[in-house]
Structure formats: structure tokens, C-alpha cells
């Protein structure tokens, strides 16, 4: 098993090609540029196509056309670019087009910063585009996990005929770590292909991919079908990792690169006699509610740590349902929390010092 030292963004791109990506459309934005640059170099060699669009709006619409014509297509961007894509993402969800969209998050709002942040939790879980839709959002915490989730994302997109988000951040995208690619085999495409636009060849009626339904009953029924699908995804694809949770009195919740910092803090706290543990959502939507319903008897409080001003904490509070206090600790604007400050906050909390 060979391990390669790779930047998170490049590992994502390489894993995407292994996962079956055939077409990439994108627009430059920091801190995700290594992804399109990798595709520009490597995708043609693999028989695929890389095309630079004139904007994120055009990129997501190229993705729509390409996937509608049967490609395993993807795009990647960073926070403000994702905001521009939301119109197209709503359309992809409505028309049930399988594709993958990577967000290497940076700080906001507005142009914010190019430094790492998790300020798009809302954007990745609450839409941003119009209408009732949900997007399966995978949230890796290491370069290895980035590669594995990226590789799998195309099969998930095909399985549920849905767009899939891969939620990375500037820290995860820019760091170098050893990554191993031979662990997983390439996923095969599955499912019904009878929706793809191929031209009717005079053998079947013309096919239309569309979202507009002016008859209220038809649109309602389409929405209910989508909700059924989201229910299936929730039941089957909700993922999380538990770390040192068995006897935890302090329950941290964090995702992505922040979760790694929290793990360091948990080890530190345990050495200091404080029994801390972590629930790490690996899917942001569907959010893992179950581990919060079965918190250990020993649990005293939950601390949600994010690189933003408090977004996932809303879902944590909904999941905890008032069974214990939920606190929030966040850094934002590109500031990365240190394990020591998390430990300090946690200890103060236990001794009644912190709010």
C-alpha cells in the first residue's frame, strides 16, 4: 500500500478521476485553484474534459448540461463562488441531476477572506437556492478522508440521482498529508439511465429535463417525491464518527478540520482529568441526530466548535432537544482555534466560569 504526500485539493482532484469523473467545469477562486489546475493537467490524459467557464454561474450550468447528457461531471469553488452557483444548484436538485460540487470554504460574509473558515455550513445545509431541496453534504476531516469521500461521491450522486456536496475548507485543501489511493476500488455507475438526453433516434418520444410545473398538484407531487428521496438519503447515508465518547462528561461536536483540533484538545483534557469526547458529523446534511439522542449518562454539556460564528450549533441544539446545555465556541475570519484555548474554555465551563 503506497502512500503519497499530497495537498488536500490535489488529492480531491485525483480521487475524483478515480471515482469516475469525466467532465470538470470551473472558474478560478482561492483557495481551491489546485483542483481545476489538476484537472486541466490530468483529466484530458484520462480521456475526460476540463473546461474553464466565464463565471461560477456558467460553470454550474455547464455541469447541468454535461450531466444531463450523461457525463459524470463536477465543479469546485469556494464560498462566494458557491453563492453564485445557488441558482444552478436549485435547478440540479429540482431536475435530479447527479453531479458533484466541491466547496473549499473560506471566511465570509461578502468577499471575506481567502483564509480557511467553515462559514458555509448554512450554505451547504440550508440551500441558498430557492425551493424545498436538500443536498447530501459530505464533510471530510483529513486528506485521506477527502480522497475517499470524493471517490465515493460520484456513486452516491448516481445512486440517488442527486447533486452531492463535498465540503472542504481552506485548511484541509491547502495542507499536505500522506494519502493512500489503492484502498478503494473505483465505483461503478449504477441505476436507471432512461432520463439522460441522447436524442430520441426516432425510437421513443422526445425526452425533457425540466423543473417548471405550473399545475400546483403536479409541483406538489414532484416535491413530495423529492422529499421521499431525501428521507431515503437521511435513513441510509447519515454518517458520523465518535471519539472517546463512552464515558464522556463533556461532549464536543465539530466537523472537518476543526474536529481534528478538537481531538487534540480532548486528549489534552483527558490528561488533565476531564473526560471529553467528540461527535464528528461526516455528513452535514443529513445531520447525525442519533448520537445526540443517545448521549452517555455521564454527559454534562455539549460544546459545538466551529470556524464560524455559530451555524451547526443550531442543528446540535435541535438534536439535543434540551437534554443538556449546548455551548458554542467559534473562531472566524480565517482565525484557526488552538487546542489549548479549547481546553481552557472547556475547563472553565466545567468549573462554572464560562458562560
Amino acid at each position: 500500500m503506497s502512500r503519497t504526500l499530497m495537498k488536500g485539493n490535489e488529492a480531491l482532484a485525483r480521487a475524483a478521476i478515480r471515482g469516475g469523473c469525466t467532465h470538470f467545469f470551473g472558474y478560478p477562486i482561492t483557495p481551491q485553484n489546485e483542483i481545476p489546475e489538476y484537472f486541466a493537467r490530468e483529466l484530458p490524459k484520462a480521456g475526460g474534459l476540463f473546461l474553464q467557464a466565464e463565471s461560477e454561474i456558467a460553470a454550474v450550468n455547464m455541469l447541468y448540461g454535461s450531466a444531463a447528457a450523461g457525463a459524470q461531471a463536477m465543479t469546485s469553488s469556494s464560498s462566494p463562488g458557491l453563492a453564485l452557483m445557488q441558482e444552478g444548484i436549485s435547478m440540479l436538485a429540482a431536475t435530479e441531476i447527479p453531479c458533484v460540487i466541491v466547496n473549499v470554504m473560506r471566511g465570509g460574509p461578502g468577499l471575506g477572506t481567502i483564509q480557511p473558515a467553515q462559514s458555509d455550513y448554512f450554505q451547504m445545509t440550508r440551500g441558498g437556492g430557492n425551493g424545498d431541496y436538500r443536498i447530501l453534504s459530505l464533510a471530510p476531516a483529513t486528506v485521506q478522508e477527502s480522497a475517499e469521500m470524493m471517490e465515493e461521491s460520484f456513486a452516491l450522486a448516481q445512486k440517488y440521482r442527486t447533486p452531492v456536496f463535498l465540503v472542504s475548507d481552506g485548511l484541509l485543501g491547502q495542507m499536505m498529508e500522506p494519502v493512500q489511493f489503492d484502498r478503494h476500488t473505483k465505483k461503478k455507475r449504477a441505476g436507471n439511465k432512461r432520463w439522460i438526453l441522447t436524442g430520441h433516434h426516432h425510437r421513443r418520444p422526445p425526452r425533457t429535463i425540466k423543473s417548471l410545473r405550473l399545475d400546483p398538484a403536479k409541483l406538489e407531487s414532484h416535491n413530495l417525491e423529492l422529499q421521499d428521496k431525501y428521507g431515503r438519503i437521511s435513513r441510509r447515508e447519515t454518517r458520523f464518527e465518535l471519539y472517546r465518547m463512552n464515558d464522556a462528561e463533556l461532549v464536543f461536536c465539530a466537523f472537518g478540520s476543526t474536529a481534528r483540533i478538537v481531538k487534540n484538545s480532548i486528549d489534552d483534557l483527558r490528561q488533565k482529568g476531564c473526560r471529553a469526547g467528540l461527535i464528528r458529523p461526516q455528513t452535514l446534511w443529513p445531520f447525525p441526530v442519533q448520537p445526540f439522542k443517545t448521549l452517555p449518562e455521564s454527559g454534562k454539556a455539549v460544546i459545538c466548535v466551529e470556524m464560524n460564528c455559530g451555524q451547526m450549533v443550531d442543528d446540535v441544539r435541535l438534536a439535543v432537544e434540551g437534554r443538556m446545555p449546548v455551548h458554542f465556541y467559534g473562531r472566524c475570519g480565517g482565525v484557526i482555534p488552538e487546542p489549548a484555548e479549547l481546553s481552557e474554555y472547556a475547563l472553565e465551563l466545567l468549573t462554572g466560569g464560562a458562560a
Partner: protein
Amino acid sequence: MSVIFKKTTGLTEAATHYCPGCTHGIAHRLVGEALEELGLLGDTIGCASVGCSIFSYNYFNVDMIECSHGRAPAVATGIKRTVPDKTVFTYQGDGDLAAIGTAEIVHAAHRGENITVIFINNAIYGMTGGQMAPTTLPGQKATTAPAGRIAEFSGRPLKMSEMLAEVPGAAYVERVSLHHPKYIRKAKKAILKGFTCQLAKGGFAMVELLSTCPTGWGLDPVEAMEWLEANMIPYYPLGVLKTPEEV
């Protein structure tokens, strides 16, 4: 006895939702006939855009995809780059192509995308109820220009064909009109050329069809055709603006 004119198989049996006298129906027929005559119906993917023609997917006898407002050239790009052997066209109005989709159309031309664009210019937003478009003529009334377009305030109308003909990647650009049978015959030839340009891998082709919106203009269908001839053609001169030598 021989049939010298009948409905093309390029159109479905569905009756259109267009207002009486709307030239969308003529444009649809010409596109359907062109695709039928070139033997392309089974291998074509069309891109419907926002506006009255959003429902064109109910009328064209080809596979189609609905596109958000202005984005059809980007969607067509994605399709054509994925299945280059298929014939891909967009059917866009002037609100769609000349306002909200300006970036997408310019850059599809800029990349020399090998697609055919059918551009319906009726100088107004039809579906939303007659608002001013970038193509609305000076003095022409619209619901958002109740006193008529004031060029000093809203600018002079955009001439998309002239503009796109200047883009190096554009291969074929022609403006035709649908106001009279003689001109409709010429429009048909232009649409055929728009598709043969794509078949020859010539690059970006656009045919602009001067059209009417009797409802939005507040004229009866015959008056609307007269208004088009008297007012639109002088501002939007007909003819080939760019042509590849081999087509």
C-alpha cells in the same frame, strides 16, 4: 394531386400556448423543418430558455432541457462538450439572451462553441407582461417604460448580432425577419445554414429572428407585422453579419 405543404415532423402534435399571431410559432416551425430536412431530429438536443418559449420543449420533436434565465448557452456548452456528435441548439428570447444571459452568450461565442443559437428578438419581455428589454426601441412603450424608452436614461437598444459578429469565435451570424412570407423563406435558409454550420464543425452560429409580440406591443397581429417592418428593420438591419467561407 401532391401535398406541397404540411406540418413538419419536427414539431409535436401539441398546440402552442402562444398568443394569436405570435411569431414564436413561425420560428418553431422553421426550426422543426430545418431539423427534419437535415435528418437531425433523432440526434438533436435543444435548450429551452426562460420566457414565453420555456414551453418550447412541448413543441419541438427532439430531446430538450429547460435552462434558467439566460443560461442556455452554458447548458448547451456542457451538452455539446459531452456529446459532440449531437446537434445542440438554444432557443432564446431577447430578455434571456440580451439581458440576463449576456455573459453566457458572449462567452459561448468567444469559445467558438459549435452550437446553433436561435435568437428571437421581439423588443420586449413577453412572458412577464411587456416590460422593457435591452432591445426595446427608443420611444417604444413598455410597462416599465410607460412613456416609451428614453435612450438618454436607459441607453440605446443592444444590437446583439453586430456585437457577437465581432467576437472572434463566432462563425456565422445573420439577422432575418418573420414579418412576411418572402422574409420567412429567407429566415428558413438562415436557420438551415445555422445548423449546417454546426454539422461542418464551423463553430458558433446565431440566427436572430426579428419577431413580434402583439400582446406586449398592444397591436393586432397584422399591425404588429407592419410595426416590425416599419420600426425594427431600420434599427436592426437584416443580413449576414458573419459567415464562414465554407458554409
